[in-house]
Structure formats: C-alpha cells, structure tokens
C-alpha cells in the first residue's frame, strides 16, 4: 500500500480561494473633493494659524505704539541714561534731519558739505583709512572723546588728549560762540594744545581746568570746522541737562540742516571709499570669486527642492502590532546574575552538584530517591575513584570563591564523562 500524501494545513485541492470568488472592491478616489480637502486642511491649521495671527497682531501693535529704541550707547534712539535720544529729539523738533548710521562707509556716503558728522566714542579703534575717510567728507566734524590716532588726524596734530580729572563747573574762558552760549559747565577736561606758530589753523580751546587741559577744542578750517569734546557726557541723556551741556550740544550739532550721527560698531572695517564690499560684488566672502553669492543661492534653492523631494514619503507608514520580544532565557540569566552579585558560590555549587548527581544517578540506573551513599558507591564502582574523592566532589563543602566554583564545575564535568557508559 502506498503512503497517502501529506496534506498541508490548507488543502491545495480546495476550490478557488475565497478572494477570487468574492471579487474585492474597486476603489476610485478617497471620497474627497477639492473643497472638502481645503476644509480639512483649514480645520487642521485653524488653531496654529490663529495663534500665529494673534502673535503677529501683537507685534504689529507694539511696533506702532512703541517707537523703535535701541540699547546702543550714544545712539539717537536710546532713551536709557547712556543714550542720546533727548538731544536727538530736540534737534529733530528744530528741523534737523538726523541720519543714524553705524558704519564708516554709510557715514561717508551720507555726510557731505553743509552737513554735520557726529562721531560718538568708539568702543574699539578706527583704522587709519577709516579716519582719513571720515575727515575727507567735507562735513563739519564733531568728535566725542576720540582715541589717540583719531584726535591727531582730525586736528592735524594741533590738539592732543591726556588724562585729567573733573574739577567742578568752570567758565569757558575763550572766544567761541558755542562756549559763550553754553556758559559754565562741568565736563572732563582731557585736551591740550600742541599747535605751533607754523600751523595754518590753530585750535580754540575752552573750559580749562587750570592745569593746561581743556574740555573743548574747535578748529575752523577753510572748508569746514572740527569740534572735539573730551567728555561724551555732553550729549548723554543723564547729564545733558547739567549746567550748559544742552546748549553746547545743540550749538555743535545744530549747525546744519543735516546731521549724520555715527555710532561706531567695533566690528565695522568699512572705509566708504575703497572697493565695493564682497556682498556688493556678489561674493560669499572675499576669498570666493565674484558672482559666487547668487550661485550659492541657486545651490541653496536646489538643495531645498532636493530636501522636498526626499522628505515626501510614498504614503503613510503601515502599522502593525509587534510581538513580545522577551526571551525565555532571561529568567535564568537574571537568576545567574543574582547568584553572582550575591557571591553565592556555595548556592551555585549546590545547584551544579545536585544536577550532576541527578544525571549520574539516572545514567547508573539509580532511583531518583537514592541517598548520597548509594550514589557515591555506584560512582566508585563505575569509575574506580577513591570513595572520599567522589563524596567530596558530589557532597563536599561549598567552594570558597569563584575560582573554586569554576574548578568544581570542571571536575564535576570530568566525573560525569567518566561515568558515562555508551
């Protein structure tokens, strides 16, 4: 008789699978229209858009209500005590157009004849070519607390600065309209006269401290004037109302309709009259060739499109329940770690010995309930080992440490291999 065919769990001889009998449905579209999709999108985006709108409205409101201010020292839009908004507001009320600039290049571009160029103290230093650009504009120059190289350059070495101390209000004691208008005031004197008879234009110095230092110096060159004040407190909000500071500031800065207000930026290296900047020549930085900036922009846009291409997934992920991933052996491993952490070498040895004795007993045909002596006798008979050694091995004292435990495990294996009879 022939062996019958082994049937798989589903018999292959079954009639056509159910799927082909019950024709699956044909799906066209996802039951949405352009309108329903837009509505859906709007419903999803409603709250984020509302929040963004409220924030935008708030920002707009604040921008309208609050004038833009800065925290930059001596800036015309800084209302803090180290700002100069007070003087700037009064000047604007009097019809002076203030141009607030932060780079030498912008200052040079904005200043010209019939305008005043104010240079507030520089936190860093001006470079040589920046100073020469600033003095070549043709505008009347007002310099507050200039550094060493600046003062020498703008006054053609007729005035120098030095350190000196404030010593109470003093009268101007000079012949200068601004000084006469301002009268007595209290400014740090730090200027002294180094001009000689050979100089074409000699400075007018005012508000001496009695030791050869002055707070104010003015030079009238044929085409323009240069005014140097050693103490910038003259325009600062917190001190502009002291003594005659306000009068002096307004007199100095209100000479012309246009006032260019330069608040130097320590990072600024522009000079206003050199080559166009890298940005103007379309460079990413001076090392790159001209025109590299637009090319980089093209590359960035192309990269954005590449990102859009890669980021769009081909449909959503398909989810499925995952099975349990716990291994059955973890319980055994955990118990082994507990033994080891507790240094329970005696307990571990007892387990190894009992299991070995159990296997040996079953190989020698002993009953599971046999006592120790029976097992030892049977092993001695099977292996010709000394009885004491076998008894020690199977029922001896627990090992003292891990090394002894490993040794015991090896010796038990050896004993078992001797007992084994094929």
């Amino acid at each position: 008789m022939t062996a019958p065919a082994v049937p798989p769990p589903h018999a292959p001889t079954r009639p056509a699978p159910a799927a082909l009998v019950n024709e699956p449905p044909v799906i066209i579209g996802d039951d949405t229209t352009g309108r329903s999709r837009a509505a859906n999108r709007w419903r999803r985006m409603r709250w984020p858009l509302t929040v963004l709108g409220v924030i935008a409205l708030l920002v707009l409101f604040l921008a309208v209500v609050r004038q833009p201010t800065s925290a930059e020292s001596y800036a015309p839009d800084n209302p803090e005590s180290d700002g100069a908004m007070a003087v700037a507001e009064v000047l604007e009320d009097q019809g002076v157009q203030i141009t607030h600039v932060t780079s030498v290049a912008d200052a040079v571009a904005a200043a010209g004849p019939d305008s005043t160029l104010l240079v507030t103290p520089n936190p860093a230093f001006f470079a040589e070519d920046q100073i020469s650009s600033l003095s070549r504009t043709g505008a009347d120059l007002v310099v507050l607390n200039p550094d060493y190289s600046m003062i020498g350059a703008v006054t053609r070495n007729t005035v120098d600065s030095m350190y000196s101390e404030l010593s109470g209000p003093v009268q101007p004691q000079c012949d200068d309209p601004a000084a006469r208008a301002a009268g007595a005031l209290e400014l740090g004197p730090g200027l002294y006269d180094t001009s000689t008879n050979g100089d074409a234009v000699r400075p007018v110095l005012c508000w001496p401290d009695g030791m050869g230092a002055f707070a104010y110096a003015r030079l009238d060159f044929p085409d323009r004037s240069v005014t140097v004040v050693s103490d910038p407190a003259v325009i600062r909000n917190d001190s502009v109302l002291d003594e005659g500071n306000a009068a002096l500031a307004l007199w100095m800065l209100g000479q012309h309709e246009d006032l260019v207000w330069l608040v130097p930026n320590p990072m600024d290296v522009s000079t206003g009259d050199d080559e166009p900047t890298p940005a103007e020549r379309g460079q990413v930085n001076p090392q790159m060739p001209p025109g590299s900036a637009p090319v980089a922009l093209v590359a960035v846009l192309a990269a954005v499109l590449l990102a859009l291409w890669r980021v769009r997934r081909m449909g959503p992920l398909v989810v499925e329940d995952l099975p349990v991933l716990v291994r059955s052996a973890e319980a055994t491993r955990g118990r082994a770690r507990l033994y080891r952490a507790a240094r329970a070498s005696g307990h571990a040895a007892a387990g190894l010995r009992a299991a070995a004795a159990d296997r040996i007993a079953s190989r020698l045909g002993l009953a599971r309930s046999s006592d120790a002596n029976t097992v030892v006798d049977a092993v001695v008979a099977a292996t010709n080992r000394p009885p004491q050694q076998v008894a020690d091995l199977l029922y001896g004292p627990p090992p003292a440490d891990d090394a002894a435990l490993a040794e015991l495990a090896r010796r038990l294996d050896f004993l078992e291999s001797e007992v084994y009879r094929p």
Partner: protein
Amino acid sequence: MVVTWRAAALMGLGVVPVLLLPANGTVLVWAAVVVLVCLVDVALAASPRRVAVQRRVPASVRLRSEATSELVVRNASGRRLRGVIRDAWGPSAGAGPGRGNGQRARPASGGSGRHHVDLPDGEAARLPTTLVPTRRGDRAAGGVTIRSLGPLGLAGRQVTLPVPGRLRVLPEFASRKHLPSRLARLREMDGRAAVQIRGEGTEFDSLREYVVGDDVRSIDWRATARRREVVVRTWRPERDRRVLIVLDTGRTAAARVGAADSTGAPRLDASIEAALLLAALAGHAGDRVELVAFDRTVRSRVVGAAGPRLMPAMAESLATVEPVLLETDWPGVVTQVRTRMTQRALVVLLTTLDPAAVENGLLPVVDQLARDHTVVVASVADEEVAGLRAGRETVAEVYDAAAAARGDLERTAVTTMLRRYGADVVEALPDDLAPRLADEYLALKAAGRL
C-alpha cells in the same frame, strides 16, 4: 503636491543664467520660472483620484511561503498616468519590490511594493508584488499610494487610497516532515503494513489465515479447530477515540525561545507545530480531534472537523491565535475539558513547565483531569538555556550554568509531581517537540491507553 529630483536639477541649471548675469535678481527670476513650470506640470498630471484600484490577495498563505498581492489599476483620469504606485504592506507581510509587468509597469526603487507605471487613458495594468510573510496571523494591507507626475516629470500629485486587503498567514507546519514516518508506524500498528507482523493494539479486529512469520501466540486455537487451516487473530488499535488538544496562550507562551544568537520565536509557535502534527496523525488514525486555545477565555476552537476538513480547520483557527499577557486560568481549563469531553479522552496540554507557574496553576488541578482522562503535558524547552547549562569558560558562565542547573532541578521536581498525579510529561526543544509528542501519542495508542 510632490517634486522630484528633476525640479532640483532644473533649479541647479539656474547656475548658467546666474553666471551670465550675476545678481540676486536673476536667481529670483529663475526660481519663479522653476515654480511656474512645476505648477504647470502639476496641473497637467493625471488626477490620482480618478484611477480605479483593486487589490487581489489570496485568502490565506502558509508562513514563509510566497503569495502575490496584485493591484489592478485602471486609468480613468482622461490623461496619461505616469508615476509610481505603491502597494503598502506591513513589515511582517514581507513584501518584496514590485515585480513589474511588461511595458506598462516596471519595478521602482526606494522600497517594497513600488511600481513605475505609464498608462494611457482608459487602459489598465496589473501590478504584482511578492509577499513572503514572516509572522503568523492576519496581515492587513496599508493603503495604495498613487504618485502621478506631470509630462515633464518635475512635480506631481500624490494620494493614498484606502484599498482594503488582508492576508491570513497560516502556521508553517514545518513538522509535517515528521508525518510520513509516524504514519508508517501507525500502519505497522494497524497490522496493515507490508511487513508481516501482528497488528499491535488491543481491539479485536478479525480472524485470518496464518502465514509464515505471524506470531504463533496469536493463533486462535478454537477457530483453528473449527476449520482445516490455522487461523490467527488480528488486533488493531482503538479507533474513534477522542483527542483534545489544549493550547495554553497565557503569558508563558509569549516568551521567545531559540538559540542565543537568533531572535527566536514565541513558544506558542512551537506548540502550534506540535498541535498540528498531533492532529494530522490522530486524524489519520481515525481519532476525533478537538482543539481549544485558552488563557482566561477561549481564544480559538476546532470542534467536529474530521477527515479532509480537519487540517484546514486547524490551520485556519490557529492562524490568528496570539499569546496574551495574562496568567492562564487552569480551573477554567478543567471546566472546558469537562464540558467538551464526557467520556475518557486523551487531553494534551501544550504549555510551559515553568515551575512557579505550574505550582500555582496546573498542579492543583491536574489530578482532577487525570482522574477522568489520559493527560499529556507537553512543554517547549529553551535552546538558549540548554546552551547556558554547558557554559564553563568564565566565572559568569559557570554562574549561568548553575542557574540553569537549578532551573532544571525545579523543573524535574515539577515533572515528578505531575507524573505522580498521573500525567505524562513531554519536554523538548522547539524543533523536537512535535515528533516527541507524536511518538508519545503512538506509544499511548499502542499501549491501549487512549
């Protein structure tokens, strides 16, 4: 709306006009041109919402064998449909890359089940995807995503359609390779085998003429005296006995067993293999096989299926059985067995000999079962623990071996207890459990203990 690499390449081509006219304005104009061309391309693309899609999937497939999910796509959009269609399946469905189907559909890269299509208006194409499922159970398909690109291939539209599809993955039944040898043994027992040995078993079958080689002890002298020739009695194993397989789907069935370097498989899968082999064998032996998958409630049941309908019913009902992270309700199992089996039966409990779980669950109730029925407790051992048992290299491995030895001792104690209560115990590694359980069944049958 989607863009392709071609849109990025077109944007990159903007380098040429920018080099001729290096200004940011040139870049903006070029970007505007690219956006405009992409929008026109999208507007000219076929609408993916006007494509008819049908998914044809076979009802069921055996684990680790091949099935084909076929999309039938008909372009009713009024325009030529160019683009990619994805037949999405979960990771366990084992979807391969799209197989392609001639000119109209080619396999697409980027993931499983993707097809490039180029369909003129009104035409249809079949898009086959090979599935090799790696997990038993119902594998539900995801949606069908259609990405329709414009004539320039720069940009397009994409939509995911909810096309239903489900593939039932039946147990692998790898243990069926053991079936022929066990069936041969069954036939020997039946006395029908080619070898001339007396049929084992205890049920009197018939009388027949003596032939050389028959056991002389089986000669029926009374019948021989009535006739001229020598007559022997033949026996056959009992038939129409009841076999109830109880599959424990509680928390211990969820743990993974297998070699330490493999991901292993849930214990339940090995139990199912054993159940299938036993059912096939018992079905051939003429016994009535029933199956209950139980943890705290009945998860699956096969009742009253016999002959050719038995194995399909078993596979179908075992396909969706999953382990539940609950403690098995053993008194409930006893109740189930009592209500199902009124006469003596072979009750096979496919569970785990986890000492703590057995002491609290199975042990108190096994004597109630063993009083009325023949009980076999079959348990899946863990290959990894077997590996731990032999470790001697480092101190840590010796401790592992000690822990494994301690576990063995506890299991031996539990086994002894179970045997004392009258249950037979079969414990084997996953691959060995099915043949060992089949052998146990044959032994019980031969001994007439069913």
